[in-house]
């Protein structure tokens, strides 16, 4: 009976929770991330070529500009904004439901630190997996740019490939991934807070999840502005 009560640390359980959350946050979002990245990459390329249409600007500049907008702003920010909606609402409603049906109380009665068990693995999982998702989005965005640019005839594949290598700044990728880590923290912790402290009924859970998406999106944009100012201004 004594052994039954000792050994509080259950690292294994927490690790399994993190893996499970990585699956649901990461793999669960691959489809939507792929679709959005390809299309927006194509649109950015066509639009850039439209804006830069001038005999003085070399054609490959389209690829340079498209690449940088995708890497610096589009992939980290827009993808995380979309995930703030998708992941945020699911986290808030999951935890909110657990709160109003007393499942969180049940955890606490057992002597389990409910926020540690439910919230922390989600944050850790997002912080680990989102940079990979964002890198994937960058690659697919650029690929979409190539396909869109070639298909619409604004740039040839050779020019595009050449442009991709011109004035490539590796720091931009570092900056984008740093942003992503902050965003990952925001889009999991803010909804988790709203869900965890939801009160009342199922109706309140719905409201909490809407609030969670709005607050985390705004917080994300503010963080984006601040980080950009710090690193690039």
């Amino acid at each position: 009976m004594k052994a039954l009560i000792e050994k509080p640390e259950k690292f294994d359980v927490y690790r399994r929770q993190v893996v499970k959350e990585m699956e649901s946050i990461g793999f669960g979002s691959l489809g939507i991330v792929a679709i959005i990245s390809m299309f927006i990459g194509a649109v950015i390329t066509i639009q850039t070529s439209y804006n830069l249409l001038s005999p003085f600007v070399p054609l490959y500049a389209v690829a340079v500009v498209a690449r940088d907008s995708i890497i610096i702003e589009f992939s980290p920010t827009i993808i995380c904004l979309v995930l703030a909606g998708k992941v945020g609402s699911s986290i808030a409603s999951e935890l909110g439901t657990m709160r109003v049906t007393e499942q969180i109380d049940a955890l606490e009665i057992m002597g389990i630190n409910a926020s540690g068990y439910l919230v922390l693995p989600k944050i850790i999982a997002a912080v680990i997996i989102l940079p990979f998702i964002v890198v994937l989005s960058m690659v697919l965005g650029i690929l979409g740019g190539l396909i869109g640019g070639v298909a619409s005839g604004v740039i040839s594949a050779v020019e595009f490939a050449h442009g991709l290598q011109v004035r490539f700044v590796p720091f931009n990728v570092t900056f984008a991934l740093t942003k992503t880590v902050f965003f990952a923290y925001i889009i999991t912790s803010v909804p988790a807070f709203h869900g965890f402290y939801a009160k009342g009924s199922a109706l309140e859970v719905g409201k909490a999840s809407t609030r969670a998406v709005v607050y985390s999106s705004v917080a994300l944009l503010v963080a984006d502005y601040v980080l950009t100012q710090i690193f690039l201004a």
Partner: protein
Amino acid sequence: MIEIKNVNKNFGETSILRDVSFVCEEGKTNLIIGGSGSGKTVLMKCIVGLFEIDNGGIYYHGRSFSELNFTERKEIRKEIGMVFQGGALFDSMTVEENLAFPLTMFTDMNKNDKRDRVNFCLSRVNLENVNKKFPSELSGGMKKRVAIARAIVMNPKYLFCDEPNSGLDPQTSIVIDNLIMEITQEYGITTLINTHDMNSVLEHGDKIFFIYKGQLWWEGDKETVLTASNKELRDLVFASKILREFRK
């Protein structure tokens, strides 16, 4: 044994519990009765620490619960089993996983030992072939029984049940009552039950505490509850027609 001493609880300006004191004895079924909204659930949640009390003290075998921090409370929490009014089963887990969860978190049991313990507790509440089902696939009574099984899986010293038989048919309700009573006596558990089921009161009330408007209004047992002269208690006990006839 749990001692509740001069407990006060307010929500904002509203006072919910006023100066409640009583003692729950070991190996006995202690009942809290009272009308809807009288403060039974709040009292129980104060005792287990889900609500912080404003005044007074809660003592588990002399250990002052209300003065402990989270880590210190953990030790007592592991000795507590609780059945919530709505069951509070983890709905992302199967029945089996619900029961195995505390074992995984707090013991070194291997897979087989856990499975045996889970099956033993499920058979204790007369449930078979539900191991792989999810809570959403169970009936209300089955959920209650799984909740009881989960509450006893760690061999608790203290068992709390918030209306274990509300919403159940009379037969299942009696099965559940008997089950709780048997477990209580068998393992010498200190059991505290919120109820307004008069059948359970008359059948199992080793100790009965009547809460009225947030105060302890009367205290007795199943022998004395029918003959008490307290007006509010009589109103509650004899609300049903059958019992009124019986009194005559």
